């Protein structure tokens, strides 16, 4: 039985990341799906390989949230293409998500950088049962 052929974008983090990348790409101006896909690949120096198909559900979702808007236009090689541009709400969202992303990266880095140095402390409960350390 075939598995659901969804793109490798499972989990909140990855999904949110793709959204963020799309929004960031559109800051420079309206673009159609093909351009966006290549722009993400190039700008990440080919580290982030997006399966191009997976872009479209993400675009649909963003448009549904009114963070981007779409219109039909003519592409550089004279073909009809659907263009996307950032809405004011999308711009606000981009700023928010970027700062959240940076926070996250900093936090992850802190954890990665400190994990070897500090041993965990343990408190002992009444009957010798270790209490769960609350952070």
């Amino acid at each position, binding site marked *: 039985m075939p598995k659901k052929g969804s793109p490798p974008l499972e989990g909140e983090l990855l999904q949110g990341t793709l959204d963020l990348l799309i929004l960031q790409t559109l800051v420079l101006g309206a673009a*159609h799906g093909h351009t966006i896909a290549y722009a993400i690949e190039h700008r990440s120096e080919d580290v982030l390989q997006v399966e*191009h198909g997976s872009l479209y559900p993400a675009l*649909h979702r963003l448009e*549904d949230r009114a963070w981007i808007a779409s219109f039909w236009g003519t592409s550089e090689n004279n073909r009809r293409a659907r263009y996307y541009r950032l809405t004011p709400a999308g711009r606000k969202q981009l700023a928010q998500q970027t700062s959240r992303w940076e926070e996250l990266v900093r936090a992850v880095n802190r954890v990665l950088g400190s994990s070897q140095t500090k041993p965990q402390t343990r408190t002992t409960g009444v009957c010798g049962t270790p209490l769960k350390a609350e952070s």
Partner: protein
Amino acid sequence: MSWTRYFRRRHWDEERARELEAYLETETDENIARGMSSEEARYAARRKLGNTTLIREEIYRMNSLGWLETIWQDLRYGVRMLAKNPGFTVVAVVTLALGIGANTAIFSIANVFMFRPLPVTDAERLTVVAVQSKGHTDPSPVSYLDYQEYREGTTAVFAGMTGYALSIIGLSYQGHADRLLVSYVPSNFFAMLGIRPALGRLINPGEGDAPKTGPVVVLGHSYWETRFGGDPNVIGRTVALDGTAVTVIGVVPEEFHGPYNLVEMDAYAPFGLLGFHSDNAFFTSRAEGDVRVLATLKPGVSIKRAQAALNAIGQRLAEQYPEADQGQRVRVFPERIARPEPAVADFMPLVAGIFFVMVALVLVVACLNVANLLLARAAAREREISIRAALGAGRKRLLRQLLTESMLLALAGGVGGALAGNWVCHLSNGMRPLGDLPMRLAFAFDWRVFAYVAGVALVAGVLAGLVPAVRVLRADLSSVLREGGRGLIGESGRHWLRNGLVIAQVAGSLVVLVAAGLFTRSLTRAESIDLGFDPHHVLNVGFDPALQGYDQARAEAFFRELLGRARALPGVQSASLAFSIPLGIYNDGARVYAEGQALPPSERVPGAGFNPVSPEYFATLGMHILEGHAFTDADTAASPPVAIVNQTMAARLWPHRDPLGQRFSYKSASGPYVTVVGLVRDAKTTGLLDATGMYFYVPQTQNYKSIHVLQVRTSIPPESLAASVAGLVRTLDPGMPMYEVMTMDQAMQGANGYFLFKMGAGFTGVLGGLGLLLAVVGVYGVVSFTAGRRRHEIGIRMALGAQRGSVFGLVIRQAATLVCAGVGIGLVAALTCTRILASLLVDVSSYDPVTYASVAVLLLAAALLACYIPARRAMKVDPMVALRYE
């Protein structure tokens, strides 16, 4: 997800398709620019983009309402599948409808008895208080004097206590008299129950609480409508209640049918009116209990605490008034389990439980049947399901689809079952166990019944659908496609599931059948109980001349004339009058004091039932006078008072002595005395199962009661005389009302006669029949299905020289194994569960071997008969055809 998107999702899909196409074109262009051939370029572009269908589906899904959407799809698909197999669908729906219908009927009845609250304030805290005396096992009404003490002494646990005394009286208005069922009530009755008048006013505080006060009457809504045509001007009019002029003051609301479940109360009058009848000891005798006590618990007070508070009062009463209350036990019941009488409280939950178990079993058997049908169909649908799975249907989705189909069946079955159950209840609405009294069973289809039916249908749907669905999904679906549809479920070694279902069915229906058998045997035994009188060939006609304003003298003249003329009718052997009929709905009783036997003050005076009768009574009823003689016309009001006692009374009052010539009083310890002139054989008078109590007869001339029943023994069918007797009555007085005109055999079917036995045997019989039918259909289905699947094998066997007879045997053997296993398991189960029936059976052991044996044989025979058809079909298989078929 926005709704607008949902409705425009087709548009969106097209839009995305175009967009994806645009991507492909751009990418192809670029690939060509990179130097690929156009075909290569297109192919590479497709690879880069991925599966466009999946992308579109994902977006489509984002636009849909998820589960709602798929449910709708499943529903449409399910309906289509069911419509495509009308035969299967009809059988499955009917099967479920029968199972659910049985449940609906039983629940509707239980709803009336146990679940639906009375339309009164704080119905959930309403309780019934009753007393149990040493001799009597049934909780019975409380005496007025004791009621007062209980009421005053338990204000700590009860927010209020009231009561009612039932009576059948005559109401006459403008020359026309009716017989009514009335409740005599204390003045707090309506206030405590929170009843507001629909018209006029109800009884005021304190009104009519003292004897001979409160000449008013409140009408029941239904009686007001039938008798007075709903006329609001009836308020303030004067009517006569048993000869006492009273004023109509109000009408109760329509939804209040009275405190006594199952009957429609016609009117309510204050206790005080009871004092107008000189012989009524209501206000003065502690020994005679008439008050059916209702009490509302204070919030937060448990039944237990209330019981303890009552016990304290009961103890004090027993010490203070030993002659009346010694050995008396006071009990409190939640009102809902004490309907219509507290006497049922001890066994009602048991009866309800038994019936619920039985209908649940029938439902399970029905579900197993449908499960088996679904399994058989799932076998036939393996290819379809495998293909759907191969095309990407998730297992969860498939499971939901299969369950949707079985739920659809259950839904249809539920609708059918609700209709069937309702119909059964309407049939039982027509029963008259209380004679002419207005019985109100009112098996209305309220929300409780609806919720129950919906719940049962839901359970049935899941039960029937789950097994086959899980079975299909656990199977290795891809192997089906490889094997070319030779089936997993039919594969040998996997029969156990279907076989197990059949065994369970047979076992379940056997348990139901055994219960039905036991109740039927019980009825047969009840019907052969020695009654002590001969109910056949007797016609009863009830009279109450007081309704026509007759006084004693006029009534006596009327009945003398009537008796004489009745005796002269062709076909009449004898005719007599009595106050009550044996096993009827009313009776009279009194304390009896044997002359010269002073009881110790601590001992309760024994009670006896009695019946004023005319001289020919014993001949008419076929009762044997063992010693002495029957009454004669010489026994008059002026002659010395006499009585005829039954064997029990003679043995109790005058053990080892000749009762003839002994004297006793049924008025007081100091006389007046009556002399025993005859000893009559014990007869059943109050209830079929009651131990025969003390009973005596007195001449009607020496104890006048207005209520009479004329009894005529005939040599021709008694019902054929009804018209001529009615003609006689009309010539004597055209306005004289007659009631309960029926044969004694018919009267015996009443609440104190065979009614409950007939109901029990009837209901369980129907359930047993249902169980049997369903089990037989189940066995037939499985055997013919497996025989069909084995056509190929049978063909080979026959080609190799197997005889037709041995093929027949092969099929029958398989079926017999299943049925025998089912019967065996069923017998063990029945032996362990029917023990709880023991207390409801008359003279039949719950291990009655005859019942068990005959039920087992019946089930075996019916099941094997059901196998005969598929077995014969298998026998007739043409080996060539069967083999070529492959």
